[in-house]
């Protein structure tokens, strides 16, 4: 295989951070080269340089052996590079066709040639097995399909090198499978792919070669057949990482949360949770497995007081909490790690210290007679930042300045530092790197050890399998089965998640 792209000694300094430190990287024709690294390792920065968005402070770029200099994405597109960004660059109110042609419009008599482009899109999606409807609006299609639009967008620009920046972060397991199929199809037709991720399993499954980055530097390369997860994790994090959570057998006690025939509607008024019944006991972790969009979001919102239920009952510590607002539920022992941390978990513009008292700012010692006690709030913040290893320049910077993993740690610190009886954690590690995942998993298991009842919702089967004591599988708004983790397998769960009937 010929080398079609080479980066040599790329260095990029941001104020206070050396994001790329003499990075070397190369790509061969038709391969999938994975770039693995924790959040903040500098992967996106390197790719932005390759895509002409940033100028490197030093270093060279070679395409087919010739040195090139990129001043804008236009230059990168011109030498056959296409990038699918971590956060999609699609315009929700435009159609698929309009999004694809934007910047590279085809005209017919000075008017946009929508039909021409639409036909071309159809052709491309046929050729590479990327199913998309050119006429639909981007805001109406699922994330997985939006990603295909992004890929077609690069192919429309005749990309031969495709950069996928954390493409699996937003996908369901099924969508990930689909994406991998598409990636193989693309490489078989001569496209070369740079695949960025921090998920070890994916890398081992799909990559031809792996380059690992840590703190701006390349720390090593590997071939999937000659390495394994723990080795890669150690390279990524810089120390040994315990991938499988160690935990004692559960010693469940009384029921803390009882949910009886609960029914909840979604935003559009359709019944999303269609009568579920289960209970969570003190000292156990009940996992809720299921493909996203099967009612988990609505279920958790109803349990935490963020959404009204339309039927059934929620009992917490013997008290009927059905359709109570969040505050009484929290005061009755709930802690909640919400699915969307930026929207429901944090006030991003507030300093870290204030976010850390978001549920009890009005109670002594933080609030006395309507006055905030800054001294107590500051002390609390300093303690939690230290205890929970939140990486922030100070507890008083806006929370939006923190990386995703550290934002999540702020929530975890707030929710787990209070005396609670029930923890509801919804997708607590989504989008986080192994280091943070390990940390949050340990905290959740610790809570269980302290006798807290834990309800864990996750679309990652691995996470559920390794943490939960019992697993409830949700499918189309119903719990199709509740099983003991010891007595089931991943493939059995996978089938149930896909709607296969549970044996009676």
């Amino acid at each position, binding site marked *: 295989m010929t080398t079609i792209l080479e980066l040599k000694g790329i260095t990029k300094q941001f104020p206070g951070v050396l994001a790329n430190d003499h990075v070397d990287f190369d790509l061969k024709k038709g391969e999938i080269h994975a770039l693995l690294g924790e959040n903040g390792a500098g992967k996106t920065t390197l790719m932005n340089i390759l895509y002409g968005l940033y100028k490197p402070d030093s270093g060279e770029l070679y395409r087919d052996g010739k040195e090139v200099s990129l001043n804008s994405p236009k230059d990168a597109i011109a030498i056959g590079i296409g990038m699918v960004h971590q956060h999609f660059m699609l315009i929700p109110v435009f159609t698929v066709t309009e999004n694809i042609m934007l*910047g590279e419009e085809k005209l017919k008599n000075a008017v946009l040639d929508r039909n021409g482009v639409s036909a071309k899109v159809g052709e491309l999606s046929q050729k590479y097995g990327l199913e998309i409807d050119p006429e639909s609006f981007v805001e109406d299609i699922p994330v997985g399909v939006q990603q295909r639009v992004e890929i077609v967008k690069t192919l429309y620009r005749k990309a031969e090198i495709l950069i996928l920046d954390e493409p699996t972060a937003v996908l369901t397991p099924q969508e990930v499978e689909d994406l991998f199929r598409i990636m193989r199809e693309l490489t078989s037709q001569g496209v070369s792919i740079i695949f960025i991720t921090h998920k070890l399993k994916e890398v081992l499954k799909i990559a031809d070669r792996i380059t690992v980055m840590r703190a701006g530097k390349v720390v090593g390369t590997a071939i999937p057949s000659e390495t394994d997860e723990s080795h890669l994790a150690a390279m990524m994090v810089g120390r040994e990482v315990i991938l499988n959570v160690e935990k004692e057998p559960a010693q469940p006690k009384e029921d803390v949360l009882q949910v009886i025939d609960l029914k909840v509607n979604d935003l559009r008024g359709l019944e999303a949770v269609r009568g579920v019944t289960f209970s969570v006991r003190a000292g156990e972790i009940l996992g809720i497995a299921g493909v996203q969009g099967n009612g988990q979001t609505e279920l958790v919102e109803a349990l935490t007081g963020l959404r009204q239920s339309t039927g059934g009952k929620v009992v917490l510590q013997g008290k009927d909490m059905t359709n109570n607002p969040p505050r009484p539920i929290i005061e009755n022992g709930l802690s909640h790690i919400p699915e969307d941390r930026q929207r429901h978990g944090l006030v991003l513009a507030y300093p870290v210290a204030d976010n850390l008292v978001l549920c009890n700012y009005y109670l002594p010692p933080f609030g006395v007679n309507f006055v905030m006690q800054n001294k107590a709030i500051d002390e609390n913040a300093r303690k939690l930042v230290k205890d929970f290893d939140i990486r922030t320049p100070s507890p008083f910077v806006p929370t939006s300045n923190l990386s995703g993993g550290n934002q999540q740690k702020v929530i975890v610190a707030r929710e787990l530092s209070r005396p609670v009886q029930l923890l509801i954690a919804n997708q607590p590690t989504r989008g986080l790197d192994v280091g943070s995942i390990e940390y949050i998993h340990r905290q959740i298991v610790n809570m269980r050890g302290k006798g807290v009842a834990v309800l864990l919702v996750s679309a990652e089967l691995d996470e559920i399998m390794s943490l939960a004591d019992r697993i409830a599988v949700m499918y189309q708004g119903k719990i199709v089965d509740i099983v003991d983790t010891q007595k089931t397998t991943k493939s059995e769960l996978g089938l149930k998640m896909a709607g296969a009937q549970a044996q009676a």
Partner: protein
Amino acid sequence: MEIRRYTFIALIIIVLIGVVVVVGKSEVSPGVIIVSMIATTIAVATPLTLGALTGVFCERAGVVNIGIEGMMLASAFFGWFGAIYMNTILKMGAFPSLIIGVIIAVITGGLLGLLHAVLSVTFKVDQIIGGTVINLLAVGISGFLNRQLFFEKGSIFGGQVPHAPGVLPRLHIPLLGDIPVVGTVFEQQPITIAAILLVIITHYVLFYTRWGLRTRAVGEHPRAADTVGINVYRMRYLNVIIGGLIAGLAGAYFTLESVPSFEPLMTNGRGFIALAAMIFGNWSPFGSWAAALVFGAASALQINLQFFRELIPPQWAFFQSSAVVGMVPYILTMLIMTGIIGKTRAPAADGIPYEK
């Protein structure tokens, strides 16, 4: 949704016209009243239509422009001044003077657009503050120069307001204008006709051309536009300037088409009503125009009720007061803006400066 919006608008206009027909029918035949109301509605809506189009260009590109009022006022003044200068000092004749006045007004608007672009795109000044700066600047400059140039002793016009070159003549549109009675509707002045053409052109440009696609992209998701090689700053600059040019034309309407005179503050809040029309019209050219026509109809009602003042029955004497009727367009604005009907959706990046 859109159908409901337009039906609602049509209903309001029909009711407003109906009121005048009921009041005036004892003196003038309903047909004549209806035709004249429609003609007046279209004419009076002109600055609102143009102002709303200014808003459409700016906001579709992601720049909020509350300085439309000021842009119109300053252009009204400079256009007026230019026309008088050409007519009185250079003795150019009425029609050429008016044309040059219009050109000066348009350029004034364009320059203020440029100022707004510099403030909001380059210096990322809060766009509400930038717009307010323009409004204050326009009031100050037009008021000050009006006094200095026309009323000061020893000013170029010798301390008195000289003869104005009149207003732009009505155009006769062949065929349409020849229809009996109804033809009056089409006997409009050039800026009014230009406004209607601009509505159609803007719609076409926004939704069918490369320029429009890119403009909307920059207003919805500038980073996405940037990653496909579109120069966000350039698109925003040019659209805000185009908006300014259109606001300049709206300014010319006041002093060169509507009345042959300038008074301080004569735009009288119409820049803001134009903005309301744009929002009610959901940032679309035709929607904006329809909304502008509602306000136009309300103003036409006001004008006509003054005309039929004596005919207002005594139990409605309240409405004989021009102050009361004069409030109608503004009250309508408020009612409509409280969201009587329909959801509107602003461009997602409207008002947010783009940081690379």
